[in-house]
């Protein structure tokens, strides 16, 4: 039986699928944050080997296609004898991908602070933890917030690739709907609009934060 798809059907299906895009983005971002925090801490240590290990980690995830990472997560976990769903594979790959970028952004924000800040803490008799949480992090947050929000846009766009390993989110719903309606402009136009509505406010917010916090730095 051939069913006809009204514009409302297309829109409704895309909206339903967009929820999964949002959920996957949130999962990746929260998971990425949880993985990134200990890595940033490890990079602050004075030992050499964590630096090299984490440099390798970030280079690996930043220097290879996200699509390959998704494939490796999908087939790699299956290799361990665990039945892996597209959702699990996509969450795993996007979490690691996100963490590799967040480590760089946050470590960079901390390193951007003058060395004198650490030395001043030492002089005041603060230990490492006190220096980090009372003095360094509050300042580093102001530097790191704009690029972090900007990177959230990359994560949302990155979730579109989960469609390729068969996870039905906004892009996959678009390809399915295009196959039944043969209206690529309408369908992919709406898909693009969906992403735009999620990403553009974040982009603008990131630019706003950049201006707000940078005004204090540049004279």
């Amino acid at each position, binding site marked *: 039986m051939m069913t006809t798809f009204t514009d409302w059907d297309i829109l409704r299906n895309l909206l339903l699928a967009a929820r999964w895009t949002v959920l996957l983005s949130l999962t990746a971002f929260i998971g990425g944050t949880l993985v990134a925090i200990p890595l940033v801490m490890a990079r602050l240590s004075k030992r050499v080997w964590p630096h090299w290990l984490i440099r390798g980690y970030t280079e690996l995830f930043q*220097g290879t*296609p996200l*699509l*390959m990472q998704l494939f*490796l997560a999908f087939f790699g976990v299956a290799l361990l004898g665990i039945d892996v769903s597209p959702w699990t594979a996509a969450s795993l790959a996007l979490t690691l991908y996100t963490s590799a970028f967040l480590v760089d952004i946050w470590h960079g924000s901390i390193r951007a602070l003058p060395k004198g800040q650490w030395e001043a803490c030492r002089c005041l008799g603060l230990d490492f933890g006190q220096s980090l949480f009372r003095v360094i992090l509050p300042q580093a947050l102001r530097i790191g917030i704009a690029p972090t929000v900007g990177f959230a846009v990359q994560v949302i766009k990155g979730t579109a690739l989960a469609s390729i390993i068969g996870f039905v989110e906004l*892009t996959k719903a678009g390809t399915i709907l295009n196959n039944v309606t043969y209206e690529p402009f309408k369908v992919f136009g709406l*898909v*693009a609009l969906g992403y735009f509505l999620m990403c553009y406010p974040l*982009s603008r917010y990131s630019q706003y934060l950049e201006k707000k916090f940078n005004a204090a730095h540049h004279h």
Partner: protein
Amino acid sequence: MAQLNFSALWPYWPELLAGLWVTIQLTLMATVGGVALGILGAALRSGRPSILSRLWGVYVELIRNTPFVVQLFFIVFGLPNLGVKLTAGEAALLAMLINLGAYSTEIIRAGIQVTPRGQWEAGRVLGLSRTQTFVQVVLPPSLKRIYPALVSQCIIVMLGSSVVSQVSHEELTFAANLIQSRTFLSFEVYLVTTLMYLALSIAMRQLLLAAGRKWFGEQP
């Protein structure tokens, strides 16, 4: 845990190398064209506000806030509806060009913005036209300043090109998918391919940064 079998992939190395070569060609063309598009866009966006510069701004925001794969599908499935027939390779290149054009517009514009206003004025006082001032006075130091960011963006476009395998363009990822379907050695194939991309991105960065030092002199 299953045993990994890399030796069974050995007969397929010509396919992987052929795929890699297509990826390199695509990247080369997209980089040259995309950066040219970016310079044009940055010039437009830095000049007097006009309808064209506004439209270019809309183009930049549309591209930067939607996924590359959706842009690709829009071109591949949409354009034939308008009667424009493109091969998979042409569509892939077009999508990459449009994508990099938008990003490099913003990157280059940022470099132009921090170039002191006096540079423009000096060029004009010396009797250069607006275009001459832009090309000969303002553009070179601006490009030098943002060159590392531009290199990173070109590498992101190269990595993003793995997606064009989805519209049957026979580049590196397409070759990997093909070998995967023949051998069922999924993890091994994708691991090897991933390492090839990693090597390519490292080589590309070193090469472009070395070229930058040659063109612009040592980075400050």
